[in-house]
């Protein structure tokens, strides 16, 4: 009888807390968004399931020697997983459109204003006494505005690990919401005439330029902003493997097996931070709110910079591609393309939008480097 009693005492029904029930509901929602709504499924499915596992009462899986906790300690605390993902992103990214039209980097720069505005917003909430974020926490929250998952996870892991769950969920959710968040802002800030602007076809980019680019970027980072070197360095390494043409087998593995394996364990490890104590907190609501604001501001700044560039350069620039400067590769570029085609069905902006899109990745990695330098 003692044994039956022990089964009952160790059962989930007996042990479960209301917070865990709420977290299980939230994780099921994340799985729903990932599977049914196809919101960034690679991450929301793995994070959501990791969250389910870590909210099962009385089991050592997200703590101690548990698999999810080991993945967190070895992969997130050390920064290894986001860096390896960034290497994979580099191996999958075609910087050709950016090389063909380097000035789209300015669009990627402008869109990073969302990051710093959000940092300010988080500190403002603190000043108003609503929340109590430190500078490190505010910086980690701001990075959501970079619309770049691995960058957000890397920075949060360094500066505010206790907010990692909320930040990762916010970052991936909003990246998936790009097709809903961006179009109204795009229509508000541009005129019909601007949205109709057709751009000249991009020039061919030679293989040598493609190979030299990652090395050039790495050297500039090394000389000017070493704190951004881990993230951008791995991005450049992946891209060099992709473009150099002599290590295709390494590049293929990086783009497939390696990034997939790391994605699975990254997602589970992030999910292990979805505990009730840390997630069911007003800070999570603030983070979701601030993240939304960050995206909107980033989009708006990219668009305004697009309008400015269009004015001051000779070749026409459709301001819509500025919205792609927030990153969220390749979703934001597709949205720019779609809104452009609504105004002018002959207007295929996709390739032009890929330039600011990948520029946004570089831009937020630079911003991340600055955050890490000052806030840590």
């Amino acid at each position, binding site marked *: 009888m003692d044994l039956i009693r022990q089964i009952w005492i160790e059962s989930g029904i007996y042990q479960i807390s209301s917070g865990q029930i709420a977290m299980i509901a939230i994780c099921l929602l994340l799985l729903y968004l990932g599977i049914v709504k196809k919101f960034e499924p690679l991450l929301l499915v793995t994070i959501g399931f990791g969250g389910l596992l870590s909210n099962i009462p009385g089991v050592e899986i997200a703590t101690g020697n548990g698999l999810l906790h080991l993945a967190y300690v070895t992969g997130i605390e050390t920064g290894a997983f986001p860096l390896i993902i960034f290497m994979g992103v580099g191996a999958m990214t075609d910087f050709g459109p950016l090389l063909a039209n380097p000035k789209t980097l300015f669009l990627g720069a402008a869109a990073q204003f969302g990051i710093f505005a959000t940092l300010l917003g988080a*500190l403002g909430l*603190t000043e108003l006494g609503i929340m109590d974020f430190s*500078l490190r926490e505010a910086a980690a929250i701001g990075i959501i505005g970079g619309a770049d998952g691995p960058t957000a996870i890397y920075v949060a892991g360094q500066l505010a690990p206790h907010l990692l769950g909320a930040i990762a969920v916010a970052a991936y959710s909003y990246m998936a919401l790009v097709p809903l968040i961006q179009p109204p802002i795009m229509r508000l800030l541009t005129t019909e005439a601007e949205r109709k602007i057709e751009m000249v076809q991009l020039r061919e980019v030679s293989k*040598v330029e493609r190979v030299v680019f990652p090395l050039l*970027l790495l050297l500039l980072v090394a000389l000017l902003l070493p704190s951004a070197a881990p993230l951008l360095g791995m991005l450049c390494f992946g891209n060099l493997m992709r473009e150099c043409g002599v290590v295709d087998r390494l590049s293929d593995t990086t783009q497939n097996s390696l990034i997939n394996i790391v994605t699975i364990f990254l997602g589970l490890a992030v999910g292990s931070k979805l505990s009730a104590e840390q997630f069911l907190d007003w800070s999570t609501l603030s983070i979701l709110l601030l993240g939304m604001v960050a995206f909107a501001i980033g989009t708006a700044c990219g668009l305004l910079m697009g309008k400015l560039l269009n004015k001051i350069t000779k070749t026409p620039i459709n301001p819509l591609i500025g919205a792609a400067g927030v990153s969220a590769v390749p979703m934001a570029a597709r949205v720019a393309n779609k809104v452009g085609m609504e105004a002018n069905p002959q207007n295929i902006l996709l390739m032009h939008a890929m330039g600011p899109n990948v520029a946004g990745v570089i*831009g937020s990695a*630079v911003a991340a480097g600055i955050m890490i330098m000052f806030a840590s």
Partner: protein
Amino acid sequence: MEIGLLNQGVTLMLVGMGTVFSFLTILVMAMSLMSSIVVKFAASGSDDDVSPEEVAAITAAIAVHRKK
């Protein structure tokens, strides 16, 4: 002290956006310079060490050897 925090935030925003723009401006210039140099000295590339005939011979040799 909270004013101090907000001040820090404003400074960080100004310096941060300044750095992002400066860095990317330098990158734009470096990329343009690099591209113009590359276009001038059109890459000469490198040749393989193994000629097609040799590859054919090797393939034939392997085929003869293994044939299983």
